[in-house]
């Protein structure tokens, strides 16, 4: 793959063949060397072939090999003439991250870490072979969930108004059409509201061990030593099935629209087509399920803290800092070729990162820029960033979403063979509770890039600014 170096942290894949725009990859020279053999760069070029794509096919520094789109890919298509691609959103529609802060200091929690981890592990189901936190939801009730998102959680006592204000889109994406979700998708989701899932999903308790910008940290209510809770999960089986249903439908319809793409997983149809509109209604519905799911889990986590630490809600002070989604397609206005245009931004393993003053941000956060939550691996650290103005000009208001895998799951399991990963993580100061050993092996710290390098690239490119670093001390895995 030919790459042109544009700066120390930005590389261009020149437009060749069926590419409609060039590709652009945010990465350090060291990262680029590691990527050259990875199919992810070919996937950046493939995404550049989507009809209606504008600007560049973008890749964030946590890019790695996905299916169709690379993980860490961003593509904006013209809202009128462009296409929508379910593969550009992914199976886990609105997979995302939320961060809650507490009033607790690490010194208070440290002697009680095991009780706290046990309480969280007991209260938050993984969702396989077990009922979710809210068992027995009927399809009619699920239709309410997918229509309302986190508002359903508010109506049912799992959220506060403040939680919704601090959630991207207020926890409810407009345009959701519950009738566009299949019966099978509802059945897959019926037991899974309030469940974590497995793979790279987690709940992590951390302490803030570094503040980079004290003014921004103050404004977000973050301080050194403070205990925080990060939840990473998505739309569970309901979303997975919805993506599958529409990949099939849209894959079959592409030929009618004269669309031919280099990877079947990129299947796309015009946004304005009946299939495209149906997918967008279903995608928004699945996204709403995900917001409700994370909100319910946050409520469960609060209950676990109160129970394990025998403290009052006022002492705990459990409050949402922000909730972001990193698998989604959204209609947004961005400047393209010098003029404001409505585009549909596909973010596949990428986080919205709107700069200060953006009207989509809630009043309390607008002057700061959007919080961007970037989990690392479970042994090292995670970051809280904020979006900068440059992101609006260069990345359609997008930034990285995580560390990015370095090692295949297979290699991670091979390297973990015979090792006591629980003990190794304990030595790093991390208590782990997990439903499967394979899950820990695949997610072991060195299977991932160092997330610090990822966020440093984004900061060097002035896309996002670091606010605080979170050091995990207890992790719950599905």
């Amino acid at each position, binding site marked *: 793959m030919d790459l042109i170096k544009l700066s120390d942290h930005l590389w261009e894949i020149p437009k060749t063949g069926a590419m409609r725009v060039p590709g652009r990859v945010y990465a350090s020279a060291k990262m680029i060397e590691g990527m050259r053999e990875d199919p992810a760069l070919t996937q950046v070029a493939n995404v550049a072939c989507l009809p209606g794509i504008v600007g560049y096919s973008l890749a964030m520094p946590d890019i790695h090999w996905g299916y169709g789109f690379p993980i860490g890919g961003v593509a904006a298509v013209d809202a009128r003439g462009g296409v929508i691609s379910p593969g550009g959103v992914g*199976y886990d529609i609105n997979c995302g991250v939320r961060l809650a802060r507490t009033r607790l200091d690490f010194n208070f929690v440290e002697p009680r870490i095991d009780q706290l981890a046990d309480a969280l592990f007991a209260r938050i189901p993984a969702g396989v072979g077990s009922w979710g936190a809210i068992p027995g939801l009927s399809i009619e009730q699920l239709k309410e969930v997918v229509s309302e998102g986190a508002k359903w959680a508010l109506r049912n006592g799992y959220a506060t108004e403040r939680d919704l204000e601090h959630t991207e889109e207020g926890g409810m994406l407009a345009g959701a059409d519950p009738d566009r979700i299949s019966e099978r998708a509802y059945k897959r989701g019926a037991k899974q509201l309030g469940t974590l899932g497995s793979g790279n999903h987690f709940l992590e308790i951390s302490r803030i061990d570094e503040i980079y910008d004290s003014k921004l940290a103050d404004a977000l209510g973050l301080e050194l030593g403070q205990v925080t809770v990060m939840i990473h999960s998505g739309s569970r*089986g309901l979303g*997975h099935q919805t993506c599958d249903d529409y990949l099939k439908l849209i894959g079959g319809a592409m030929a009618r629209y004269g669309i031919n793409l280099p*990877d079947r997983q990129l*299947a796309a149809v015009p946004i304005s087509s009946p299939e495209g509109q149906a997918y967008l209604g279903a995608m928004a519905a699945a996204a709403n399920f995900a917001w409700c799911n994370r909100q319910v889990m946050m409520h469960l986590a609060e209950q676990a803290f109160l129970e394990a630490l025998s403290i009052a809600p006022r002492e705990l002070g459990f409050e949402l800092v922000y909730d972001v989604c990193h698998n989604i397609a959204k209609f947004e206005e961005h400047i393209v070729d010098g003029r404001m245009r409505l585009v549909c931004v596909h973010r596949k393993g990428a986080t919205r990162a709107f700069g200060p003053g953006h009207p989509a941000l809630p009043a309390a956060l607008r002057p700061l820029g959007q919080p961007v939550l970037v989990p690392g691996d479970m042994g090292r650290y995670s970051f809280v960033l904020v979006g900068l103005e440059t992101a609006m000009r260069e990345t359609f208001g997008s930034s990285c979403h995580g560390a990015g895998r370095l090692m295949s*799951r*297979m290699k991670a399991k091979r390297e973990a063979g015979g090792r006591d990963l629980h003990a190794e993580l304990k030595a790093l100061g991390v208590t782990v509770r997990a439903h499967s050993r394979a899950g820990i092996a695949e997610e072991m710290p060195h299977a991932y890039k160092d997330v610090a390098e990822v966020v440093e690239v984004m900061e060097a490119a002035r896309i996002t600014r670091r606010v605080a670093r979170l050091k995990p001390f207890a992790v719950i895995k599905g």
Partner: protein
Amino acid sequence: MPTKPTAPQTEDAALFREFEHTGDLGIELDAPTRGELFRRAAIALAALLVETAGVAEIEQREIAVEAEADLDLMHDLLTELLALFTVEGFIWRGAWVKEAGRSIRVTLRGEPFDPARHAFRGEIKAVTYHQLMVEGSPGGWRSRIIFDV
């Protein structure tokens, strides 16, 4: 054209091999016949979801799929099987395949998934189309499948 059902095998994990994929889970399968390839794929999926050694073959389920291309047949079969696990909570260890033109019928023997008895290996979100391959030659059949996990 119907073919003779293939017999189940017990060495489930030996029927497939994982290949390196950065983010997801990829497997390759070889089989002497087309029917055996689909059967091995069914067994492989169960073995990726749970430790199948402890699965008792006490209940039977049937899945039928039809598609023009073998590629779609493989995708749709595995997707139906994934739904059998995720929606109905059924896990299997034995599989028999009957081929009839563009359709296949798979008979599965197993039991309801019980997390207390069956060690869960990890969630599979979906069967992707990315680099999906099903190829037959006089020497045998081969498939390559990437699951989103």
